[in-house]
């Protein structure tokens, strides 16, 4: 079982990296969260029966852990009044720089918005987002539109 788990985790670890970067600011905190998610996934792996996609299960546990696990110092993650540079100028910027700006923008959202938008950006259906978050499918759409507007404002600020 451990071998199977590690193989799945290795193949899907990009989800863990993204969620850690989304929910924590500093590199150390991101590493701690990454490790916490791995631990929680391992604990809940025996109960995973394969009803959902493996990536859906990973997202569910990862988001739950990111929101519910205790943070070291402060709770708020708001650091910037605006994003360092405009996201839309991707002509001269390297991929990692653009990625960094994307995460800086996403980190301006609150915890519930972060969960919904991360699933939306990953191309999950409204039904899947509703299942993972617990809000109704109808409100997923409403919520996503609001977050998109907010994100646009953050990026263009």
């Amino acid at each position, binding site marked *: 079982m*451990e071998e199977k*788990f*590690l193989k799945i*985790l*290795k193949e899907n*670890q*990009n*989800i*863990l*990296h*993204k969620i850690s*970067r989304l929910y924590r600011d500093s590199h150390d905190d991101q*590493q*701690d969260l*990454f*490790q*916490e998610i*791995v*631990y*929680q996934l*391992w*604990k*809940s792996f025996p109960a995973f029966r394969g009803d959902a996609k493996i990536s859906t299960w990973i997202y*569910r*546990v990862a*988001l*739950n*852990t990111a*929101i*519910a696990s*205790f943070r070291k110092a402060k*709770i708020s993650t708001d650091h910037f009044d605006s994003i360092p540079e405009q*996201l*839309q100028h*991707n002509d001269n910027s390297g*991929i990692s720089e*653009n*990625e960094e700006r*994307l*995460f800086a923008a996403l980190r301006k959202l*609150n*915890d*519930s*918005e972060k*969960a919904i938008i*991360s699933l939306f*950006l*990953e*191309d999950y259906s409204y039904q899947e987002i509703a*299942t*993972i*978050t*617990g*809000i*109704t499918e109808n*409100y997923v759409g*409403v*919520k996503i539109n609001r977050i*998109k507007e907010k994100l646009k404002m953050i*990026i263009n600020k």
Partner: protein
Amino acid sequence: MDIKDLKAEWQKAGSGSVNEETLKLMTKISQHPTLRKLRIKLISEAIFLIILLFVYYDGFDGDKKPIYVNVLLVLSILLYITNNFLGFLFIKNPVRGNNIIVSLQKLCLVLKRMTVFSLLSSTIYAATLIFYFSVSVEFTFLKYILLGTMMLIFVIISFFSYKKWKQKIDYFSHVLSAYIKDVA
């Protein structure tokens, strides 16, 4: 940048390769960033308190105190150890439901119960300790001052402990309400 660009950027993000050996280590509690330290603290405290249970009777004149005072002290120490253990279990299991809302609802409920139990067990523990050392003591003015100071320190510690718990409850209630208000 439109939503398609954001999606593309998100989907290619998250690079970074942690090998299987490191991932395997991360599944162990001994490698956990918080739980490892908490477990050491929990075990050290429990060992200290259990040693105290074995030596207090001879060391702190247990034979000269009434039986019920001795029983109270033992029970309060056991209650305190139980509280520490429950706190550890609580931090060890942040994921409590099949979706985020259920998980947060359960978390808030458990946090409220933990707050009551933690404050109650600390109060009983401190009150019993003070009571134990006060029984069969002839009080002078200086001893009253000492007793008053100890009680004051305990009240201040309890107040800050309550504030810390409340801060956690408020935070998770706030996150939960951000979801709930959209469902309603």
